């Protein structure tokens, strides 16, 4: 084929531009450390990476939520254990007193001890975590338990949320009861009523009633222990889920890294190749443009 002089120069120009543009592309990859810097660089990888980052962001949030839930559950477990010990201690006193008539002094002493237990139990029921009452269901701003009346009319009222547990999301469409409401955990155990009943029975020196309350307190202790193990079940559920997320999130991070991050060894090798191609284009240009018939004419 006949080759016109401008064709030669056009060829040189195109080769230099093309190799330079290739070099520029790989330069951008290496310096940004990313395989793609705009959607058109690799639309499929871009969309995949978006999906992965979204999932990671969501898992990150679930992990934050789970930390909240863990705080609540850990505190609940400690508190419920203590309450159950209070119930057990009160029951021991009941057992001691039910063995025979005691002096008024002993009874008064015992009654005030029981009163102390009652206050302790109410205090534990009103435990706060980060300023929120954890046994009030959704009513986290009001103390769930209050002592009202005195003597025969004394009762402990529950003023928290009677139906709902405080739920936290720990997965897509999955929530966990971080704080069960006080109605379920405390009121159903009849602990407060039994302590008040026991106090009255001691004051009245009513042996039958004391024995009755002793049985009630045993029931309450069992019930509270069941609540502790219920919390334990949720704690281990949370732990399993947490481990699962840690693993999933590490996997996803790896996938995202593989997708997004430049493999430096490969990229630098590629960069050297492009650099060579560019140099060759430049050298060829210098050599070709030197040759002309003019050089040989005198």
């Amino acid at each position, binding site marked *: 084929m006949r080759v016109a002089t401008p064709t030669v120069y056009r060829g040189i120009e195109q080769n230099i531009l093309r190799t330079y543009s290739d070099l520029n592309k790989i330069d951008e990859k290496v310096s940004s450390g990313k395989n793609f810097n705009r959607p058109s660089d690799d639309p499929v990888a871009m969309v995949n990476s978006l999906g992965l980052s979204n999932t990671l*962001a969501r898992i990150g949030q679930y992990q934050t939520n789970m930390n909240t839930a863990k705080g609540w559950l850990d505190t609940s477990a400690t508190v419920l254990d203590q309450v159950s010990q209070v119930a057990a201690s009160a029951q021991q006193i009941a057992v001691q007193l039910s063995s025979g008539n005691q002096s008024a002094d002993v009874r008064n002493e015992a009654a005030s001890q029981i009163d102390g237990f009652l206050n302790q139990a109410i205090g534990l029921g009103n435990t706060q975590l980060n300023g929120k009452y954890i046994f009030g269901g959704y009513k986290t701003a009001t103390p769930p338990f209050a002592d009202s009346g005195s003597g025969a009319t004394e009762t402990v009222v529950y003023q928290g949320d009677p139906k709902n547990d405080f739920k936290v999301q720990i997965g897509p469409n999955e929530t966990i009861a971080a704080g069960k409401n006080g109605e379920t955990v405390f009121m159903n155990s009849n602990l407060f009523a039994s302590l008040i009943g026991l106090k009255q029975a001691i004051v009245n020196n009513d042996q039958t009633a004391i024995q009755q309350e002793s049985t009630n307190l045993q029931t309450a202790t069992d019930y509270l222990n069941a609540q502790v193990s219920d919390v334990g079940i949720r704690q281990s559920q949370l732990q399993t889920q947490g481990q699962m997320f840690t693993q999933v999130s590490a996997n996803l991070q790896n996938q995202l890294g593989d997708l997004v991050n430049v493999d430096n060894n490969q990229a630098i090798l590629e960069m050297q190749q492009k650099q060579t191609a560019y140099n060759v284009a430049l050298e060829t240009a210098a050599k070709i443009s030197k040759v002309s*018939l003019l050089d040989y004419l005198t």
Partner: protein
Amino acid sequence: MGGINAIMNIARGALQANQIAMEVVSHNIANVNTPGYTRQSAVLESASPVSINQLKIGTGVQVGSVTQASDPYTTRAIQQNTSSLNEYQTQASVLSQLESLFNETGNATLSNAMNDFWNAWQDVANNPGGTVERTALLEKANILAQKFNSMSNDLTQTKKDMNTNLQMGIEKVNDLTKNIADLNDKIVAAEADKTTANDLRDQRNNLLQELSSWVGNVSVEQGNGSVTVMTQGGNLLVDGNKHWDLQQSGNNIYYNNVPNDISKNLTGGQIGGWLNIRDEVVPQYQSNLDELAGTLIRQVNTLHSTGYTLSGQTGKKFFDNSQVPVSGDNTGAAGYIQLSADVQNNPSNIAAGSIPPAAPGDSSPGDNENALKIVALQTDNSIQIRQWTISDRGTSTSNSLQTETMDGYYQTLVGEIGTTTQAANENQSFAQSTLDNLQNVRDSVSGVNLDEELTELLKIQRAYEANSKIISIADEMLQSLLQVQ
């Protein structure tokens, strides 16, 4: 006539012919780098012989014509490819700007804003009574709405920019068609004596190629040497020495001042590219972004208005939906999405709870059930969103109902713009290499090769020298005669 005078005349004629040939070579060398220049050559032919004593004696050489090594087929192919290349180039360059709007490799992206928005709802769910969490949610929602707004604005601005570009392009086209008509006139006049107006034709080809870079066209050469130029859609732009203008009025392009939009007749070239962006690409992204924003407003508001605020009120809106029509048409939603007056500056009006308060005025923090429901929207893959396809310069719009998460819908959108931009880039480099090839093919016929011209130059120089020699020999012969006494 014969004899020594005839010899001298032949040599003189040959000197003249070779001078002309050398002028043509010089012209070629001078134009070696002139774009669109077609190599010319002087066609030498022997002059008619004369009869002397029944002998046919040659009378030397003459220049029959100066022709150009033109390749009309490739030249036309170059014009057509110039228009495709410019169309793709224009689209690729606008798309790469558009793509930066949807560039999700950075931080301040819509995708991140959406994640932050959903996570802020989670935080509210974790502490439904917390003012800090509620205020943070409003901030995140505001950032999300503003991100939608600014993307929508940028898309609208892109359409306006296209109109500014079109204005310039159309002026250029009108200039070019006028100049082509002028050249038609000159060429017809110059070629009246059956010669070829070589350089004028080169000029006209250059103008036709430039016209193709602005808008695709069909050009046909007439018998008298003039070209007739039409748009791809058949509007006559140049015929003989007459030309017809285009006018722009808002989004319309008129032909010859007739107020009837002919923009669909303009395809190819930069103008075709801009029109595609303005009437197909941008409207499609805009509709889909609107669809996403509208769906978000609707879905969040539907749940939000059934929930209860901190003060136990219900029926509050989260996003302002005064502009969302009941018909479900989401046009413009990305532009107008904003927080409702209910919650703006009023974090306690966020309806995180789904249980009515026990007593009116009960100020205890409500539950988080509603917040959890709204959070669940993020992973709800049963949401139906329309996905629009706009083609044929906006005359054909269709949508398909996608059932997916809102995140997924947006990811599809980002993938789509990535693929479109990638395709435009690939089309551009393909058209570029096709054009380069055609240019080389054309040059192989029409381009100047300096080595070739220099060889030609030597050849002519030698001929010139030889003919000069003949004159001096003839002169010596004459002198010999004169010395005979």
